[in-house]
């Protein structure tokens, strides 16, 4: 019996089939366990389960059935968040790159792809902001490191030269004769050779250079080549006789032809910790679009002026994020901003804070920066920049938790200040300087904290986290935060003006100077415009709720109080602002009625301020655009308020809705009669 293969007999449709299986040995024998299993099954009652000692229901949930993923590939899909294994490395050429060596063109292209992937993984890993996009950097042992990949650019250059010569030769041979001996045609039809050369070239081009200026030139030429790639699609499609099934827009190649050498099953064991789900590879068109956008985003980053003023930088990052850049672009921005623990790899963070807090240039090298609290503050600023480069959803969560850190640093600094200087006014020069540093920075930290709180709240609108029934409390809280932000900004500007005055020649203030001083700075007026809009919306929404019960029905399990607690928990915990609670919210809004609403139109105030302050921002297109939006919101809401006041109590069919068509976080109120 030993070593003889035993054939199992299995009956399928009555036909016995012979299957080779594990042979019995000297000490083992095969026995039919079917009757035993049947008896065990019969003995089990409903709901009973036979399992081993280490069986655990929770762990058993990970038992998934493996499905066939779709067969396709694409770097664009990888950038968009899917694993390398299911995208780039579903191409056999990349897995066995050494085997492509005989074909210079394919070989160099694959090397470049591999080197690019490695570079991108490097950038994103260094940036460390990719929490939710985690699949991105996992390589699962796939070969990203190739020997000689550092020379891939010169190999590619050589190939590019060859194809360029081929293209020139094609164009030169007017009678479309055979190419010169040393050039191998890309394909068999001489009439199509020129088109193929062009199509290939635009996919291969590269340029040398260093620095942001050079990068911008590269980007511009890349965009041109992408245009050519798109144009090549028509030619490539016409080359293939087979009519393509399905919508050409869904195809993953320019020609519509199925890609050769790609098989998603190649890496079914490597794709992820759990077996892979079917993913949708981006269509070729969408892939090209992705790269066009990426290049535009990178261009914006490369053209940034590296402004040493933190306030301008923060505005730049916020503005950049409005175009919803993807992970790769955001990682590059972060790496530009924070390198070697310095801003732009150039400015130490204490110097940055020194400037932002309107301290004289001389104090940026003061020894006080070695103080633990100031070191921590530098870290907070660095982390703030990193957080602002992440995707909006993650950013908001991080900012919310971050508020506590800023609050703590403020308390620490204040404590340190009081311990050092107490109530005594010191006379020593250095002590005066230290005091001044503390005072400025404490004020600046407060301003920064309220700015973060403001950003946290408005991101909620962008992420659609608030339902309409919650707008009232959100605008009320926004109003409370904006009031403090405006106050601190105003103080900061006053203190900054003092510093500037002291720097300049000591001359008597002219009447003009005095008048300018007593005017509210434009930046503060800008915030006041926000304040008016927030207040107007709070009151209008409060009146609507108080007068029209249907407007906001009660929920069976909790009240507005619980919702308030949940939405503002992180702000409340950090006491931002102080003395703000659900109770104070109720007190402010409980008496709002249509009659009280009619008494004061905050939107008209907002309109007036926006108009007034425009001239101060004539060189700032971004702020001008924002002011125009604020004017529109104010105007629409002013009209809506009038309608509501006149008709609200009389017309129960009044329908009120909210749109964000004019401004991303100030709603436009739309009133309709049904």
């Amino acid at each position, binding site marked *: 019996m030993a070593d003889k293969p035993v054939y199992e007999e299995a009956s399928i449709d009555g036909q016995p089939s012979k299957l080779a299986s594990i042979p019995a040995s000297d000490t083992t024998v095969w026995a039919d366990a079917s009757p035993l299993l049947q008896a065990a099954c019969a003995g089990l009652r*409903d*709901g009973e*389960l036979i399992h081993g000692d280490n069986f655990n*229901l*929770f762990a*058993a*949930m990970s*038992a*998934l*059935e493996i*499905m066939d993923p779709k067969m396709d590939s694409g770097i664009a899909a990888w950038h*968009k*968040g*899917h694993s390398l294994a299911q995208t780039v490395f579903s191409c056999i050429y990349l897995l066995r790159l050494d085997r492509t060596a005989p074909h210079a063109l394919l070989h160099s292209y694959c090397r470049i792809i591999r080197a690019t992937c490695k570079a991108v993984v490097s950038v994103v890993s260094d940036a460390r902001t990719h929490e*939710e*996009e985690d699949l991105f950097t996992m390589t699962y042992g796939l070969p990203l490191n190739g020997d000689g990949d550092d020379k891939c650019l010169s190999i590619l250059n050589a190939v590019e030269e060859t194809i360029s010569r081929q293209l020139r030769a094609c164009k030169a041979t007017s009678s479309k004769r055979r190419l010169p001996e040393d050039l191998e045609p890309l394909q068999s039809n001489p009439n199509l050779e020129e088109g193929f050369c062009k199509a290939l070239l635009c996919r291969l081009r590269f340029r040398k250079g260093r620095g942001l200026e050079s990068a911008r030139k590269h980007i511009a030429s890349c965009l041109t080549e992408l245009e050519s790639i798109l144009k090549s699609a028509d030619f490539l499609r016409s080359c293939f006789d087979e009519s393509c099934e399905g919508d050409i827009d869904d195809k993953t190649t320019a020609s519509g032809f199925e890609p050769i050498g790609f098989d998603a099953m190649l890496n079914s064991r490597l794709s992820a910790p759990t077996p892979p*789900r079917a*993913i*949708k590879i981006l269509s070729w068109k969408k892939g090209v679009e992705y790269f066009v956008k990426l290049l535009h985003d990178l261009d914006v980053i490369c053209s940034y002026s590296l402004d040493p003023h933190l306030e301008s930088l923060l505005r730049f990052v916020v503005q950049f994020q409005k175009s919803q850049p993807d992970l790769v672009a955001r990682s590059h921005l972060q790496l530009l901003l924070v390198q070697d623990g310095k801003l732009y790899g150039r400015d130490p963070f204490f110097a940055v804070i020194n400037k932002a807090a309107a301290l004289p240039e001389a104090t940026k090298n003061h020894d006080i920066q070695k103080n633990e609290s100031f070191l921590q503050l530098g870290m907070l600023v660095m982390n703030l920049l990193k957080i602002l480069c992440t*995707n*909006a*959803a*993650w950013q*908001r*969560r991080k900012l919310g938790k971050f508020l506590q850190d800023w609050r703590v640093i403020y308390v620490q600094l204040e404590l340190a200040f009081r311990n050092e200087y107490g109530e005594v006014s010191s006379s020593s020069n250095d002590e005066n300087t230290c005091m001044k540093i503390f005072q400025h920075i404490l004020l600046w930290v407060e301003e920064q904290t309220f700015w973060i709180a403001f950003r946290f709240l408005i991101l909620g609108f962008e*992420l*659609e*986290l*608030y*339902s309409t*029934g*919650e707008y009232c409390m959100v605008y009320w809280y926004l109003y409370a935060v904006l009031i403090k932000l405006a106050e601190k900004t105003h103080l900061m500007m006053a203190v900054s003006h003092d510093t500037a005055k002291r720097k300049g020649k000591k001359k008597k203030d002219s009447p003009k100077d005095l008048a300018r001083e007593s005017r509210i700075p434009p930046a503060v007026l800008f915030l006041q415009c926000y304040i008016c809009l927030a207040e107007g919306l709070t009151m209008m929404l409060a009146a609507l709720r108080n007068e029209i019960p249907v407007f906001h*029905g009660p*929920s*069976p*399990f*909790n*009240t507005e*109080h*619980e*919702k308030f*607690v*949940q*939405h503002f928990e992180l702000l409340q915990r950090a006491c931002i602002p102080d003395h703000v609670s659900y109770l104070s919210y109720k007190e402010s809004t409980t008496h709002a009625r249509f009659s009280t609403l009619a008494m004061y139109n905050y939107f008209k105030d907002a309109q007036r301020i926006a108009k007034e302050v425009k001239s101060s921002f004539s060189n700032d297109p971004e702020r001008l655009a924002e002011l125009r939006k604020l004017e529109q919101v104010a105007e629409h809401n002013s009209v809506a308020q009038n309608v509501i006041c006149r008709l609200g109590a009389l017309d129960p069919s009044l329908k009120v809705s909210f749109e964000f068509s004019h401004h991303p976080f100030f709603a436009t109120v739309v009133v309709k009669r049904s």
Partner: protein
Amino acid sequence: MEAKPEEKAEFEEPEIEYVSYGGEHHLPLIMNLVDQELSEPYSIFTYRYFVYLWPQLSFLAFHKGKCVGTVVCKMGEHRNTFRGYIAMLVVIKPYRGRGIATELVTRSIRMMMESGCEEVTLEAEVTNKGALALYGRLGFIRAKRLFHYYLNGVDAFRLKLLFPPPRQVL
């Protein structure tokens, strides 16, 4: 593919019978409903995990002996809070829009509340307007947005319901 006009079932609200999970005989009914209607594929172990450990939190809706809806939940300690979690909620198409899902979820939440849960949570696709409206009416807020939560690239909201602190018995 032509879109057929959706056939709505005819029934009165009192005809719907709501039943707490009663045992193995309910399991295939739940599995069939969920397999049919939801995109996430679950193994039988997933269902068993929920209904074996928290049978009192799962409910089924029947109309004339046919299972038309179900809710599957769990609860437990999570970072120092006792929290309920709604894992699956399904009502077959012809029976939607009539409050059956709301009733199923309400029963489960009430049971969680009575069992001492401080809050209830679940995830829902940002595009699932129906679910967002349903849970919004019950008092859930959108606590977080989860970027590309689902592998098809769609974001999710984490929805949370916070119960008021238990009333003091005077």
